[in-house]
């Protein structure tokens, strides 16, 4: 315990099988992720698409629709202005909006905390496009982020969110136990563990790209026009499907 603390994964045979891999040099990220998926308790799986996580997905989609409707400059003004690069202001504003909603609806959770970070990274990746976060113009960020709503590809934006969410969720699972093995032959330095975490992140982001949510596109176009409580409620089935599909892909090897 302390000002900063971490907790190891549960002491179950399934999680022990995950930890066995950390005793080997260069464990394959797919195998690590696959064993973690096998180790997840039912309520942990449920938690992956809890109300807080869905609220973060909603905020990402709603933001794109709002930018498409109002333009980024006006949307940023409505979020309460932040000085600095527009993508930073956008990501910070949407992060704040999701956090506020989660707080006032008392939906906070561990996976919600990770999903707030996934929301932020989704905004940073989609709105900055090929340009740098600190240099992208308002017009370019508007075009890159708003196009998901303008071009009827909110399902694609949902996949972007899931890819960042899986990235952070699985790095969270690995980080809980990996530190115990640093200094061993398998992970002699902290850099070796960082490389392992990077490989897990890449594996998850790549795998999530195989999730297909296009059948939800028409519904998504309707949902983003609703009031927030309705949006979150109606996004739940998509989140369940997306997470389920993602876990299947990641468990099967990418």
């Amino acid at each position: 315990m302390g000002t900063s603390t971490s907790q190891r994964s549960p002491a179950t045979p399934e999680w022990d099988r995950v930890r066995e891999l950390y005793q080997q040099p260069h464990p394959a990220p797919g195998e690590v992720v696959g064993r973690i998926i096998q180790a997840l308790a039912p309520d942990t799986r449920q938690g992956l698409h809890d109300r807080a996580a869905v609220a973060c997905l909603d905020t990402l989609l709603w933001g794109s629709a709002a930018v498409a409707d109002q333009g980024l400059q006006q949307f940023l003004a409505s979020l309460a202005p932040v000085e600095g690069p527009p993508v930073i202001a956008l990501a910070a504003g949407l992060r704040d909006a999701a956090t506020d909603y989660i707080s006032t609806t008392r939906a906070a959770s561990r996976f919600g905390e990770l999903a707030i970070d996934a929301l932020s990274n989704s905004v940073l990746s989609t709105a900055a496009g090929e340009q740098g976060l600190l240099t992208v113009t308002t017009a370019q960020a508007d075009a890159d982020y708003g196009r998901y709503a303008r071009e009827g590809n909110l399902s694609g934006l949902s996949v972007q969110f899931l890819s960042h969410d899986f990235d952070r969720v699985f790095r969270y699972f690995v980080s809980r136990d990996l530190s115990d093995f640093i200094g061993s032959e398998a992970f002699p330095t902290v850099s070796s563990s960082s490389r392992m975490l990077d490989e897990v992140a890449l594996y998850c982001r790549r795998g999530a790209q195989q999730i297909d949510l296009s059948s939800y596109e028409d519904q998504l176009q309707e949902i983003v026009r609703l009031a927030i409580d309705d949006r979150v409620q109606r996004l739940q089935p998509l989140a369940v499907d997306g997470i389920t599909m993602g876990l299947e892909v990641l468990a099967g090897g990418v």
Partner: protein
Amino acid sequence: MAVTVVQIEGLPPSVLAIRPGLVEADWQLDWRSPRRNAVCTLTELQAHLPIPLSPLAQDFIDVATAVYLTDIAMRRGRNEGWVRDLELVLPVRCPDFWHAVADQFTRLLQRLTGDNFEFTFYRCGADTTNNNSPTPTTATTDSADCVCLLSGGLDSLAGAVMLLRAGRRPHLVMHYSGNPTVRAAQDYVQQLLAKTWPDRSLFSGVHIAPDTHSPDALLYPEPDEREPSRRGRSLLYMTLSAVGAATAGQEDVYMAENGVLTAALPLTLARTGSLSTRSTHPAVINLFNSLCEQAGWSCRVQNPFIYQTKAELIRDILRPVLSPLDIQKTASCWMTGRANRQCGGCIPCLLRRIAMLAAGLPDEAYMMDLLGDPLPHAGTDAFTNLVDLLNHTTTILAKSDEELLREYPRLLDLARTGVSVSEVIAMLRRHAAEVEQVMTTHFPTPARLLEVL
């Protein structure tokens, strides 16, 4: 399932008639009646104030005390069970105010603790002025021009010293610890400031804690059953200082903490959310200041050290006026409350030891020499703390500003508080360089883990 906590003293009988189940709430809190299971002693603070506490100021202290005691009483679960659902039923003197700010207050507490809070406020049923409240005598706070929180730790000492060196006259407010080691550090710091700057500051100690010594005391968890994370305690500290400032008509309230702990980046993703404390995070402070504004108070809590590392506080603020021994008399250890010595393995101990050496002070003795000989501690929480700190150091030094924003999206929370994210990143880089330099110079095994030896 939500856990219900009721501040039972002051709850009007009409409420208990409507909600008889409240007497069977998970926990009942009381710090006024003979059945009290907590103590709330404000004697020194109140004696120093020019006028009695207003009803709203008393509400602030009661509500913060209830949150503090609830935070201690309710154990967190492990992993995904860390986040708690808490319902508090509280009698207040100014229910209109609390109803108006309930959502904002919930947001503040969620950001601070990571938990879900729900409040039900009722108008007090009886006079509930603090029964140990002295009649204010001389308005001694007339001689003070600001309030500064003092904990017995190094950073808050630096805050007080900064103010005194600048010619300010702070009213120093301290929440007394029940732990003898921390209390000794608190007493030492208080005497040190009084001796070094005679008649320049005013001191008020406050004691708020669980206390079940009374034979009729309501139940409260035994010490070993209490939650050790204490993520909510800075609400109490901010409240005590703001109430003191508001009552004395002062505007500046200082809660000093170094930039690394203030930015509160998780060292790894396993420390996400409130696993990493946000006790002085600017988003939390801003929300608290907004509450003060709505209360009609002109005081504002501020942390002057968001852009400074702990080593910089020692080198630039403390060392020019205090001896190494004086600085070493402060207490930083998170585990001191449990072990009565600085443990050497918690994050505050690691940061303190590194900061002392980086600032050129002598090394200190700890219960475990984790930095000198870490590998025998593999598999312990202490070892995890060290390697996670080293991992974080590597990340901060290796990545560009843009990559750090993606790795630590929590930095974005600073962007909406008026804090310069680029200056915070620069401070984090200086800190990471201090860690690397101290490992290279003093501790070969961690240096090898960092690949700098």
